[in-house]
């Protein structure tokens, strides 16, 4: 099994250099994306077969590459199999979408070689079974995605995005490197088997937890390490944006789970507090940032931060319950988090691909230059609608189920004995509820401004429906969102082995229950049946429609819009993205973003138009990144004199350094 998987990855790695040649060929992008699609589908099948196999053998192998005394260890257990499935599900969707979308690429030579390499790197990360292979693949993944981020390098914003991304990625890898260093200890056991076997002291394991939060958290986009994400994800071509947001952040979640739940041993009570204290605010802040944006891809990137926050809240709860020995609740929280991993991969890919379709059709990413696209692109609009409802955590789609499971875990937390948790969990629950409501607001805005209303520009007015591959991908992902929403029991059962390995217990079997209901603990406590809710809504809607059309009236006629008697033909009269979020900006933004609205009125008699300027500050950038940048700038400016010394002084410096080192050694 694992040999097959490694062969698939090898195919991707071979495809990468060939991509340079294919880029010159007219059908090159079809070949590269078609092969990537085939490989991703096979890898996804391998992972699913492994995950659903009841005997569940653990595959592992060692290849003689990498460090000579270590080799490269690979292993597929339940956790790896699940994430392998997620990575390749997203990879297959992106490749299928790119079969149509990729043909519009102006410079395919900047995308085609890196795309298969990027897919291969993500696959290696989730299969790696020693620290060296893991870190090399992790860094390879960062670099390949960096190359894709700067593929449209004429745009100065993309260059800045690439720069910030490179810095943050290096920082994240450094933190992980240190984490694995501590895990390996002075013995230097880098393969995971040996790391699992050597227990750490309480202090050291706490250090590893914090380093893992920094390293994996910066890749996943947890606040305050998220600064690069909304810059880098939108800068890449849209199918890669979908991969970065939908899949790569999940690889980061995998890294965190692997280190904290697997390698680090039994958790301590305060770990969950650290995770929850970062996850909860990430969820709320992420969506508040998203609400302030008008660039459609940037809205989606910020919303990724929100969803990662939700996932980490689930993981934090799982840690808390695991530490207290309540493995059955830990399994519930852990399953909720993993189910959200899968769901987010589906709807975020769908939304980014939809944004790509818009970009192709109109050339615009700014929502305020779109509008009315439901008439021009009805199929894309229908699929995007499903994505927007699903990500807003509304029934009967999949986003709701995973949030519902997380809420159920929160409702069991009064049983936890620790006071810190008793105080932080209700607050986190409140933040999660707030994030869910704000997400709905955010996606009403995204959909309403770009697809509904009237076209604001000529580009939007002349848009045409996108190619068949793009539409196929959008509909496939939308169908997945519905199926996972109405039949969640199947997915929860598939996650059972993962929870069993990671937290020591799994949720009760769901698929045997009547009517395919999901019952996380006991029916008297809580149950949800997406299928019945969906059927009821469908049924009552159709009955109402039939009854009214048969019994009352089914005629309609078209007329100009009413608008209280004052319709205006100018599309600029419509609400824009900024004006839509103005009430929320006033409620939340004035404290969080120091938002100010400055009205500039022209003097009397002047014919200059009045202007309204909105001034927003990113509190985290101002408080954290700007001072660090300033310090580094200050330091480099002063260290710079070292570059212009005379040879004698350099020799003195070398001599002093030597003495200092010897003194240190002697001590």
């Amino acid at each position: 099994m694992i040999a097959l998987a490694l062969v698939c990855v090898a195919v991707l790695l071979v495809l990468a250099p060939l991509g340079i040649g294919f880029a010159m060929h007219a059908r090159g992008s079809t070949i590269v994306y078609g092969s990537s699609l085939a490989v991703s589908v096979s890898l996804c099948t391998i992972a699913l077969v492994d995950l659903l196999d009841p005997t569940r053998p653990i595959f592992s192998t060692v290849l003689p590459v990498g460090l000579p005394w270590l080799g490269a260890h690979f292993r597929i257990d339940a956790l790896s199999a699940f994430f392998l499935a997620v990575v390749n599900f997203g990879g297959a969707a992106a490749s299928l979408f790119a079969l149509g979308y990729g043909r519009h690429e102006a410079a395919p030579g900047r995308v085609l070689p890196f795309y298969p390499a990027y897919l291969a790197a993500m696959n290696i990360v989730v299969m790696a079974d020693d620290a060296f292979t893991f870190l090399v693949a992790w860094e390879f993944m960062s670099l390949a995605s960096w190359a894709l981020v700067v593929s449209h390098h004429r745009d100065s914003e993309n260059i800045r995005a690439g720069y910030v991304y490179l810095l943050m990625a290096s920082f994240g890898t450094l933190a992980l490197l240190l984490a694995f260093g501590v895990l390996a200890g002075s013995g230097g056991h880098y393969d995971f088997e040996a790391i699992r076997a050597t227990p750490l002291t309480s202090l050291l394991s706490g250090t590893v937890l914090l380093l893992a939060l920094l390293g994996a958290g910066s890749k996943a986009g947890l606040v305050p390490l998220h600064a690069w994400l909304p810059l880098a994800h939108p800068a890449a071509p849209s199918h890669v944006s979908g991969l970065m947001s939908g899949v790569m952040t999940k690889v980061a979640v995998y890294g965190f789970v692997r280190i904290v739940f697997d390698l680090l041993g039994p958790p301590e009570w305060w770990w969950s507090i650290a995770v929850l204290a970062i996850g909860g605010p990430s969820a709320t802040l992420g969506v508040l940032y998203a609400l302030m944006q008008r660039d459609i891809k940037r809205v989606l990137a910020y919303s990724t931060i929100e969803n990662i926050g939700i996932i980490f809240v689930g993981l934090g709860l799982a840690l808390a319950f695991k530490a207290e020995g309540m493995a059955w609740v830990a399994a519930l929280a852990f399953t909720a988090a993993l189910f959200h991993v899968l769901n987010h991969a589906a709807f975020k890919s769908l939304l980014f691909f939809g944004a790509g379709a818009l970009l192709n059709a109109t050339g615009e990413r700014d929502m305020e230059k779109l509008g009315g696209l439901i008439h021009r692109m009805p199929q894309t609009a229908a699929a995007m609608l499903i994505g927007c409802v699903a990500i807003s955590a509304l029934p009967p789609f999949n986003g709701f189920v995973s949030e519902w499971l997380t809420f159920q875990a929160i409702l069991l937390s009064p049983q936890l004995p620790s006071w810190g948790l008793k105080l932080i969990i209700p607050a986190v629950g409140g933040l999660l509820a707030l994030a869910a409501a704000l997400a709905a607001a955010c996606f009403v805005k995204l959909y309403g401004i770009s697809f509904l209303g009237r076209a604001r520009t000529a580009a939007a007015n002349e848009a045409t429906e996108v190619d068949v591959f793009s539409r196929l991908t959008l509909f496939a992902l939308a169908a997945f969102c519905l199926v996972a929403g109405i039949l969640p029991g199947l997915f929860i059962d598939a996650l059972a082995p993962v929870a069993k390995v990671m937290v020591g217990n799994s949720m009760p079997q769901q698929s045997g229950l009547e009517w395919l209901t999901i019952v996380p603990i006991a029916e008297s406590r809580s149950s949800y049946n997406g299928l019945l809710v969906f059927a009821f809504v469908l049924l009552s809607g159709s009955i109402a429609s039939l009854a009214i059309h048969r019994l009352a009236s089914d005629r309609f006629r078209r007329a100009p819009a009413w608008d209280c008697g004052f319709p205006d033909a100018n599309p600029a009269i419509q609400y824009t993205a900024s004006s839509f979020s103005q009430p929320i900006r006033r409620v939340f933004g004035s404290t969080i973003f120091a938002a100010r609205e400055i009205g500039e009125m022209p003097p009397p008699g002047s014919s200059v138009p009045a202007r309204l300027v909105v001034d927003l500050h990113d509190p985290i950038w101002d408080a954290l990144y700007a001072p660090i940048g300033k310090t580094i700038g200050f330091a480099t400016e002063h260290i710079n004199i070292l570059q212009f010394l005379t040879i004698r002084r350099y020799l003195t410096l070398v001599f002093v350094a030597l003495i200092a080192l010897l003194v240190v050694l002697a001590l």
Partner: protein
Amino acid sequence: MRMIHDLVSQGVQMLLVLSLAPLLTGFVRKIKAQLLRRQGPPLLQPYRDLVRLMRKDVVLAANASWLFRAIPYIIFAGTWVAASLVPTFGSGLMFSWSADLIAIIALLGSARFFLALAGMDVGTAFGGIGSSREVMIASLAEPAILITVFAVAMIAGSTQLSTIAEFMGSSAVGLRVSLGMALIALTIVAIAENGRIPVDNPATHLELTMVHEAMVLEYSGRHLALIDLSSQLKLLLYLSLIACIFMPWGAAAPEARIDALTIGAVAYIVKLAACGLALAVFETSIAKMRVFRIPEFLGAALMLALLATLLRFVSGSL
């Protein structure tokens, strides 16, 4: 036999909420008029309005999309299903396990999501202002009600409404501070969600402060009738919810016989009337708020709900 009994009881419930909803709205209007020393429209006026609207032609705005025409049915279906999952006269509903309280609230959230989209479909300034304010109100009201649900669910040990109703009817519940806070929070949210004074004025038109009416401005005929019926159902849902959690007296137990069911039905009507009366008195005695005072009003609900939840975490008996 059991199955048939349950199916009938669920069917009766669905028809009951549908037929009672306009009456409740008519009742509240009548009381409000009487409090202002006006005669007021007859109690059955909402039914007549609905029938009249249903029979009329729909006048669609020139650039309305397919979504605009589908949305009234989506909203109606979502609200109707949600309303028929809340226990009214008895707690033994066949399908009450298919959606718990969180799911019911989320269903209402779905309906609101589509209503806000409908406001933006035609591309008028009025529709936009309505949707924009609706999502602002919802972004505070929804967490408030979710956290209220947390508080209640933690006390009752369940998010299933029928289980909560049974627990609240038993003697195990006692007098709790957190329940009082939850009641106030739920009431505030109910007022905001149904667009009642002081948050929105259901009788207004052509006013810059309007929210709900601005979103549905372009609807006419049967579409408007469905949306009106949905808001009436929503009012009934919230009052039933308050009645079933905080006034559980008289509700029939699961598998109750016909006499218990009759008592339950009478008790339910009395409870609805009491809530409707209270709503009318409250609405008459208070003035409408400025839009940007609403967050403070809803923020109070949010804080109360959070405090109630926190109390439950801190102590089992508060």
